[in-house]
């Protein structure tokens, strides 16, 4: 799965957790979920669980620190998908 597709899908995953819809629509791989999208850090577990469900992968919390940035989140999801493929 290519990075653009995952990025587009991540927008949907993150939508319930940010009130800033304009910034969400314009995210890039550099976007920081907490600093740029004002997502409360307590919602990170929600996002990880939602991403796990969507991609049918398991994301360990060691990887969670990389999920703070969109590019890192795409890396983690791609790695997990490759593992299960």
């Amino acid at each position, binding site marked *: 799965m290519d990075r653009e597709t995952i990025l587009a899908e991540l927008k949907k995953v993150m939508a319930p957790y940010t*009130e*800033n819809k304009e910034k969400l629509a314009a995210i890039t791989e550099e976007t920081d979920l907490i*600093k740029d999208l*004002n997502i*409360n*850090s*307590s919602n990170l*577990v*929600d996002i*990880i*669980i939602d991403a796990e469900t969507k991609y049918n992968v398991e994301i360990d*919390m*060691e990887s*969670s*620190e*990389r999920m*703070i940035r969109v590019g890192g989140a795409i890396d983690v999801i791609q790695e997990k998908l490759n593992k299960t493929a």
Partner: protein
Amino acid sequence: MISIGNDIVSLSSMDRQRTLDPRYYSKILSTGEVRLFSDHLAALEFEQYVWMAWSLKESAYKYLKRKIPVLEFSPTKFVVQTISEADVDFNSIIGGDWTFSDDDSLYSGKIKFDSNVLHFRAIKTPQWIASMVNLNDDFRNVSWAVQEIDGDNHELQSSGVRNFLLSELADIFTGDIVIRKDKVGYPVAFQNGEVLDFPISLSHHGRYVSYAFNLSMVGDLPMVGVVTETTGGTIRALVGDLPTVGVITEP
């Protein structure tokens, strides 16, 4: 190095059913931390314990981020070592516009990251969980407070927590006090354009805002609040009943 870390979780903003799912809480708690939740934490529901642990990990992360600027938050790397309920009069230990009731409880204990062991205080109410960490089990010169604000959007939270902090700093410092962020992202207080060199930590979630700061670096604050003995330490109230104590000009 003196630092400070605090955090607040609005419980109504969290999904209760989801929190109780082992798949969910196992991303926050280690098996050891699940075991720590035992009978002596009777005043705490498991859901509240999960978010208290989360909050403690956030507070510890914020404390250590000053020491280790490259540190990233990974909840399972911060481990709650001990936790016990303390028997104190709440209204004497924390400020802000909050009246504590029988449903509220205070906790103290230790949390570890690598070789760093930090001491904490945490408060549970039916609405929120707040926590604060310090290097020693000595909370002199630490001020900690919680306030409810009028809404839960980011702008209100951000201005609310700053105004709340400023209203308390105005009782301690004279002159023009402003809060800015440094390049790592920490709040820093300025007095007439000059940095006030003491650590501040801010947190907001839902309709609640909280701050903590440690004034040990700029000098002893006069003991104006009520000092309350808790398990192994003291917390003093600064907020709410703090009279003007004069200028602290030389960091």
